[in-house]
């Protein structure tokens, strides 16, 4: 089963590499983008993948701060998904540069061109910083959590090679009390840093659009609207992966229906926020009285791209509302189908925002239509290959659930703990307070 999936993913990845090589060799003329519609599938896919990459850090960081115990079942896989999704996302702006070998020009380093620096006032450069910071911090957060679990695998390893490899991966972790104390402090501060970071990343991605003067883009609603959409699609992707992983790896006891239901609750919440945002956009377009804005939205709904707008509305606004029904929230096949539907919808959202804001320009003479060519489609499929290749390797060689954290939760909610709590609960308040005070006095 694993080998079939892995083989298929690698095949997709190879096709993606071929498509990208084709585009780099012949130039971006092989893509369907044109002078009017300069951003097509590439930037759509970039925003889509970045959005998916938001759930992992949200689950690990924000839910850690909110002390949501259920996150321990799913956080490791979700964080891995974040990292792989951001890796996929990063490919698109890089290859969209066209002359990708000059891509390092975006980095502010002393150069022989002046030195000519990048424009720090440009949202596109903010994106470079946001995405690379997000990738680095997510990677550190993920890996620092993995170290104790690698140590567990190392100490249980049977073969010499595994002991060696997991020994290197575990950084020589032994689980001493002081190390754990620092580990907890690190996790808490990284969570505290990641929480504003995760919100900032999609905010900055939305600035790519919102700071421009294109009707349909130039709106202040974009940052919260993008963040909600990112969480929405990210949670859907986590559900897609978890439903498959728990089945294949027999993790039904660790990733329970309760987990999926909790995820579905977040999906219905963020889906509703996204729905309200769409309607607000429409209302403001009408209420502002701005002619360009009104025209942009009229053509979105009724123009030649009407099908993308209505696909977005159906998948993102109507369908998640079904999750108000508890029976559907706890239905695993339905959850799986919905997770796919939501991500199709979110892909269309980005397509609608990008293409249907650009295709009717200020000058009717430059109005155009855009459809992708095979290298663009191949590039997109290739990132699926990259994503699933990484995920399959992760699922086989990495601890897919956060072992140490699960043990912690089980210990504090396990039978021994409850038995211990019974005696405390049986005590009167004075006895308890007295005991704590004497304990502190001794300490």
């Amino acid at each position, binding site marked *: 089963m694993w080998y079939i999936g892995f083989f298929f993913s690698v095949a997709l990845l190879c096709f993606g590499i071929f498509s990208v090589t084709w585009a780099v060799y012949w130039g971006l003329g092989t893509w369907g983008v044109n002078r009017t519609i300069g951003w097509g599938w590439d930037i759509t896919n970039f925003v889509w993948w970045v959005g998916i990459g938001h759930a992992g850090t949200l689950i690990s960081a924000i839910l850690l701060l909110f002390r949501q115990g259920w996150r321990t079942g799913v956080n490791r896989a979700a964080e891995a998904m974040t990292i792989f999704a951001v890796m996929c996302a990063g490919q698109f702006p890089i290859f969209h540069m066209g002359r990708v070998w000059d891509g390092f020009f975006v980095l502010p380093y002393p150069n022989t061109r002046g030195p000519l620096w990048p*424009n720090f006032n440009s949202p596109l450069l903010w994106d470079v*910083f946001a995405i690379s910071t997000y990738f680095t911090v997510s990677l550190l957060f993920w890996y620092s959590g993995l170290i*104790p679990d690698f140590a567990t695998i190392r100490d249980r390893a049977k073969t010499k090679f595994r002991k060696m490899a997991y020994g290197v991966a575990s950084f*020589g972790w032994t689980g001493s009390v002081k190390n*754990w104390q*620092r580990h907890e*402090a690190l996790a808490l501060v990284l969570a505290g840093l990641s929480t504003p970071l995760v919100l900032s990343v999609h905010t900055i991605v939305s600035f790519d659009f919102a700071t421009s003067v294109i009707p349909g883009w130039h709106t202040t609603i974009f940052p919260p609207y993008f963040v909600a959409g990112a969480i929405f699609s990210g949670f859907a992707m986590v559900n897609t992966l978890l439903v498959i992983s728990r089945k294949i790896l027999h993790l039904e006891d660790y990733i329970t229906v309760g987990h999926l239901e909790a995820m579905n609750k977040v999906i219905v919440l963020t889906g509703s926020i996204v729905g309200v945002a769409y309607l607000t956009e429409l209302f403001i377009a009408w209420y502002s009285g701005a002619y360009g804005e009104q025209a942009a939205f009229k053509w979105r709904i009724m123009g030649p791209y009407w099908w993308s707008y209505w696909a977005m509305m159906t998948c993102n606004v109507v369908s998640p509302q079904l999750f108000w029904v508890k029976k559907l929230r706890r239905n695993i096949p339905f959850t799986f189908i919905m997770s796919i539907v939501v991500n199709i919808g979110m892909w269309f959202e980005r397509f609608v925002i990008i293409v249907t804001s650009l295709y009717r320009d200020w000058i009717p003479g430059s109005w155009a239509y855009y459809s992708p060519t095979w290298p663009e489609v191949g590039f997109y499929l290739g990132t699926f290959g990259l994503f699933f290749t990484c995920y399959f390797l992760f699922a086989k060689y990495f601890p897919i659930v956060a072992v140490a954290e699960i043990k912690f939760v089980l210990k504090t909610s396990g039978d021994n703990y409850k038995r211990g709590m019974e005696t405390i609960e049986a005590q009167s308040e004075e006895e308890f307070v007295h005991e704590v005070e004497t304990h502190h006095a001794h300490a």
Partner: protein
Amino acid sequence: MAIKKFAVACYDDEEVLFPALKTVRHSGYKLHDIYTPFAVHGLDEAMGLKGTDLHIAGFIFGLCGTSTALGFISWILTSDWPLNFGGKPHFSLPAWIPITFELTVLFSAVGMVLTWCYLNQVMPGVKKHVFHPRQSDDYFVMAVELNDHTSEQEVVDFLKTTGAKETSVQIAEDSWWYGRFDKEEAYQKL
């Protein structure tokens, strides 16, 4: 970094571990360390360890990130290569907030993780003695340092009375060294 002799006691329940730790500390034997498969809350206090100041390192690194970003961007855009963007001021602070924020987070996170690795002395290629293979699985392992004045048997017997499931005496390096976990370490006799 020294090779020492340890009496090792393994517990399978934290509710046994805590009282055991208390008796060991009262007994006056030198507690080396305790190894647990997950973070046991309150164990650091029970061992008499101070809290960690790692978050202060994170704060300082964060400040470095903020000042690097603001200093670098303002130097570039106001003195090294000032550009005129439609007559807007060269010192345009609001537009620099995103990058300043990102670099603050980046410096803080990277710096703190490196500090964490340094303080915990963990790194790829570093090896430390594992007193019991189940210390990362389901055992709480306490190592008590032995010296010329302590009787080996006495300490082991004492640890047994505290509820240890397994006890042993081991000679081991008390710190880290460069090595591989698939290779046994060979110690010369004390």
